[in-house]
């Protein structure tokens, strides 16, 4: 999946997106819904040792409901957050059904604990599709689909011109993911 997405990559198709990346980023990240101030606080507040309160704060910022996980499931996820190494996503396969059922939640945990993983978001997926990178729709944390999503954003970071790189206090994955989300929402 990942290789198909990358082999079919058309840099020319990205040009309109790269040309507007800064504007698109501000549109999404600084929108009221995204609460950029809270996001930026989380960048600092989520730190080792991870505790349930930190996960709650992430859930709250994401607008997700309360985690209905058993304590050992939460522990298992927290251990995985320590163990996982970017850009690996295969570890997701070892989770029980409950945490695997919500890719948005898991990707947000990965994002705030590592900064290099991108938050899964349907608009972002659509944004990728508009520039020719087709990632299947999913709600489940499939390691291959999420892996392709993460690699695609990483690839964009590599090929984007320097004008895309703002000196903003957010990780570059967030910069690109936010801009893609705004781009994906456009008709």
């Amino acid at each position: 999946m990942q290789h198909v997405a990358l082999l079919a990559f058309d840099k020319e198709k990205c040009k309109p997106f790269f040309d507007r990346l800064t504007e698109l980023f501000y549109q999404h990240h600084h929108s009221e819904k995204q609460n950029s101030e809270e996001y930026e606080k989380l960048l600092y507040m989520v730190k080792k040792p991870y505790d349930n309160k930190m996960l709650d704060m992430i859930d709250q910022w994401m607008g997700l409901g309360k985690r209905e996980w058993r304590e050992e499931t939460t522990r298992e996820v927290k251990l995985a957050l320590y163990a996982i190494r970017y850009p690996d996503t295969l570890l997701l396969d070892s989770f029980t059904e409950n945490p695997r059922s919500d890719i948005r939640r898991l990707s947000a945990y990965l994002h705030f604990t590592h900064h290099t993983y991108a938050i899964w978001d349907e608009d972002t997926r659509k944004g990728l599709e508009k520039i020719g990178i087709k990632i299947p729709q999913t709600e489940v944390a499939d390691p291959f689909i999420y892996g392709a999503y993460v690699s695609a954003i990483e690839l964009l970071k590599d090929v984007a011109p320097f004008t895309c790189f703002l000196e903003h206090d957010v990780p570059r994955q967030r910069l690109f993911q936010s801009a893609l989300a705004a781009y994906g929402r456009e008709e």
Partner: protein
Amino acid sequence: MSGSEIVEGYTPNFEAWIRDFNEWQTRIGFDPSWLGDYRFDIKFDWDTAGDSIEFGDFKGMPKWERRMQIPQQNIRDAIISMVSVQGDTEFASVEQQNHLLATAPTEYDKKSALRIMCEEQRHGWQMAYLLCTYFGEQGVREAAKLLERNAQDGTRILGSFNAPIDHWLDFFCFTHFIDRDGKYQLKMLSTSSFKPLAASMGPMLKEESFHLGTGANGLRRIVKQGVIPCELLQKYLNKWISTGLDLFGTDDSTSAQWAYVYGVKGRYDERESDIEADRGHLNEASRELYFQELREEMRRISAARKEGEPELFIPSDKFNRGIGNYAGKNFTIHGEKFEGSDEEYKAYLVSVLPTEEDENKLMNDYMKREWIQYREWKGN
């Protein structure tokens, strides 16, 4: 030539230079093991470099890709000089900063500074590669000099790059103010008529944005923490900003004008601007854009301060200047002409610039506490 490229094979000239580089690292105390798996790649972004000369008297002609295509020796000399100055600053900053790794306030800051030093060295490699690969014996000699001059000995080309960076507040000021000047210089070269130079700038600018971000975020984290009083921080801003402004060079500069005529170095907003360049005041125009950017950035940084702390601001561009029309003249930080004797002005400077006593207080009191907002290193 098209697309982005990482150069795989090097010329013998550059291979020889790399041996000198390895010795330079040892000489300045930069342990190569700190690099981890970082590689000093030579990167070109041919897509953003452009095919035709974009401004100046050669506008519209194909960009020069080799030395022999450059029509005059004085243009070659101007290019060599610009590449040398750029390379000189890259190595100088590593000489100025590498001692700070041992006293980093957090692992995040240590890793960020290390990344900056790796990337600055890569930028130096890139400039040395251009000199060794495109400019024959003259280039090889200039590339060797990049490693012979030294910030500790005060022999680097530009003043700011000989100034000591004694602590992490200076480091954050340096990356915020001086690296920001670097961003301007790189962007001005990104439209150069010498295509390999223009194509070098894209990858360098991408990396530079992290350096500026480190400076701006570092200052914001200090202000947010509220341990170092804004009054003291202001003195460090006063110290570094005039240095940053001086780096743009003299007013009414003829060398900037010639560089523009040759198409070698453009304006900061060359591609975005739709007005004719004022060739007689090129340095002033870029400096003004830089100055405006500093003011906007400082508003964001200052907004993080604790209640009751005074607002941080960018001092006047007339204050404490060493280069240009205001050089050596007595102005206050607010841009008013200082009414008083030179002796009184010296006393005034003591009140607005860091003194030895300030340095002691900063390093032996404030910096012994939790003086900067904690941030965890999230890299793998």
